[in-house]
């Protein structure tokens, strides 16, 4: 048994941590979120230079190894700074799908550009009515000769506006909720018939509504086998879910630390409010939540690494448990701060927002609880 990071992982953590602490303070982040693009190109290039964009990829694909543990090391540090650069959308989701489903020539064509910081991606999978079901796909792709004609709408697509290329889950056969008949297409974001309506998200990121109106896509842009994309999509979404779990653990740790610090400096009734036992126990509870969250995160990452990248049930366990922790830690942090906690000015409210959206991203706490439960019978 070993719970410590390898030397390489330690170095990776140090370098990301240093960047967040020195170059990604809350004011810097705010300026970045308010910029037209919503993230910093300069940072993105730096991430490429430092090799961080190679973290999610296997050595065979030209990456650093792509273990789940490496991924959570980076994501946890990102979470501490509420990083808004589209690492998740481009490298983990987009890059992950290409690595998972793409053929050799597609990988060769694209992966190096992702890792080099030259290509932005977005994965368009949710739809207005799909909620959290990955198999719930109504965007259609009809084969016509050596093209697909794509029609429909995707919603709340992270990084959808800045992306150069979109990975789109489409239905090539079957009914709305069938597991079969889902395919994955790589669509040029500027292609005719693609309309993107970008916006900020409540947690400072960017997303877009995307409509596809008779978009013609060369058949060569199909990733993987026609109609058989769902298992690959699920696998990649699970990895992304694990990634945001790590992000949330990082965010929770900082939220707790800031809350503890604040109570030591804020005086009411002649004493620091940290002296009130009513608040002390609540912070002790927050601490317990963060540690339980971290434990279940490690569990899931270890399972994933031990099982060749597949760990459905473990990921759902982590997502639902960390979701509950995020809810509590976020709400308590704001409450314990008092009025200053509900202002836009202080970072704590923004951590609370991110810890809120986290609970619903890639499936709610309840959804994952159910998936964990249902997985029990199917697990060996």
């Amino acid at each position: 048994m070993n719970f410590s990071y390898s030397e390489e992982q330690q170095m990776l953590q140090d370098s990301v941590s240093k960047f967040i602490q020195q170059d990604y303070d809350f004011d810097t982040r705010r300026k970045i979120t308010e910029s037209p693009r919503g993230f910093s190109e300069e940072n993105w290039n730096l991430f490429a230079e430092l090799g961080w964009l190679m973290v999610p990829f296997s050595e065979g694909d030209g990456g650093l190894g792509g273990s789940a543990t490496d991924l959570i090391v980076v994501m946890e540090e990102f979470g501490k700074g509420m990083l808004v650069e589209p690492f998740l959308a481009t490298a983990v989701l987009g890059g992950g799908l290409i690595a998972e489903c793409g053929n050799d020539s597609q990988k060769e064509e694209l992966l190096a550009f992702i890792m080099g910081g030259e290509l932005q991606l977005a994965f368009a999978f949710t739809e207005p009515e799909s909620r959290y079901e990955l198999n719930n796909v109504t965007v259609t792709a009809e084969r016509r000769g050596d093209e697909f004609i794509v029609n429909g709408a995707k919603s709340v697509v992270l990084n959808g506006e800045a992306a150069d290329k979109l990975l789109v889950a489409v239905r090539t056969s079957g009914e709305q909720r069938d597991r079969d008949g889902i395919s994955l297409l790589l669509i040029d974001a500027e292609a005719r018939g693609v309309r993107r309506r970008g916006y900020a998200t409540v947690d400072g990121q960017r997303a877009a509504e995307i409509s596809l109106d008779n978009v013609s896509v060369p058949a060569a842009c199909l990733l993987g086998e026609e109609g058989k994309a769902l298992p690959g999509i699920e696998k990649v979404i699970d990895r992304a879910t694990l990634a945001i779990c790590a992000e949330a653990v990082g965010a929770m740790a900082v939220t707790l630390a800031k809350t503890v610090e604040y109570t030591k400096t804020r005086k009411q009734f002649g004493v620091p409010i940290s002296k009130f036992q009513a608040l002390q126990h609540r912070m002790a509870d927050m601490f317990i939540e963060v540690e339980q969250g971290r434990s279940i995160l490690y569990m899931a990452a270890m399972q994933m690494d031990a099982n060749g990248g597949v760990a459905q049930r473990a990921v759902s366990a982590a997502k639902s448990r960390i979701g509950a922790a995020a809810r509590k830690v976020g709400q308590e942090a704001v409450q314990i701060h008092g009025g200053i906690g509900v202002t836009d000015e202080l970072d704590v409210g923004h951590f609370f927002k991110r810890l809120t959206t986290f609970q619903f991203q890639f499936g709610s706490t309840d959804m994952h609880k159910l998936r964990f439960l249902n997985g029990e019978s199917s697990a060996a």
Partner: protein
Amino acid sequence: MNIDLTEEELSFREEVRAFLKEKLPADLSRKTLNGLHMEKEDYVRWQKILHEQGWAAVNWPVEHGGTGWTPTQKYIWANECAVAGAPDVIPFGMKMVAPVIYTYGNEEQKQRFLPDILASNVWWCQGYSEPNAGSDLASLKTSAVRDGDHYVVNGTKTWTTLGHYADWIFCLVRTGGPDVKNQEAISFLLIDMNDPGISVSPIITLDGHREVNEVFFDNVRVPVENRIGEEGKGWTYAKVLLTHERTGIARVANSKQRLGQLKRLAAETADGAGSLLDNLAFAQKIVDVELELLALEYTELRALASVSTGKAPGPESSILKIKGTEVAQLIDELFVEAAGNYSMPFVKDQFAPGFDGEPVGPGTAANAAPRYFNNRKASIYGGSNEIQKNIICKAVLGL
């Protein structure tokens, strides 16, 4: 024990319903029912309609223009207003400063201030909290030093809700020196926001709106005649007022209305093969809130019944504040959950009148998260829920 309404009460309810149906503007009710941002003009428009009807000041004594309604009538009124989506009456003038003026003010002050409050001609804000005096309000530092017929006021008030709309501010200020006990050093002053030396700067809340402010006083000269009651008695007056603030705070009627709305929304929201209301986990959360609310409703009714037998609202009213805000916040959260992926977008001004951009998400789904974020304030202001529990410990349990 019984909670049946009498014949007169039933016909009163009909009268209220008919009034709301005829006079409540549809745009205001839409905003209220969806928790959308309101402008000053929106509030004033509605309050003037109420005034015309003679129903603006529900709690005031009849002699000053109040309704003279029984507690049951007030309860009916609150329920019907919530169901119809009538905007909240802004409390600062009507529910906060007016009771202090008509209870402790002199004749001249009553003549001067009450009619404009009643008619919503003048907007008031509450200047109690300071950067270093929140829960420990009595430690406030804003000073008022006597200079002839004036007080010279210096200091900073903060968290002043809608202070940027206000014509007047009622303040707790320190008139006693450092050797005077806190509770005897505080006076209650009415200050014209247009006085030289006052400046107001915005505080933006988590939903991106300007709702609160900091108000700075730099040698502001306030006539002594603007002091309510005796010098050094302001704390006593304010405490009476705080109890008033607490009784309406359970907001049972509003929470009931919203819970109904939530169920309808859940029934219309697709979730897998069925609707979100068929989702057992979600349905259970709704039931949990509903049961809490049902108990709270009866807790409030018990409190009302005891007030109607002549007892003052006691420390039990802290239950109403704690549970009322917890229930409202849980409902806010369930709306976020119902919005699902559409809880993410933040399109500023999407729901403002005159928005000519492209809206995102179905209905007001994209308003769910900002509203949830904003309403975390409810368990913080008006005496935080921790402070309410301290009150229960001390005043009820004798700890």
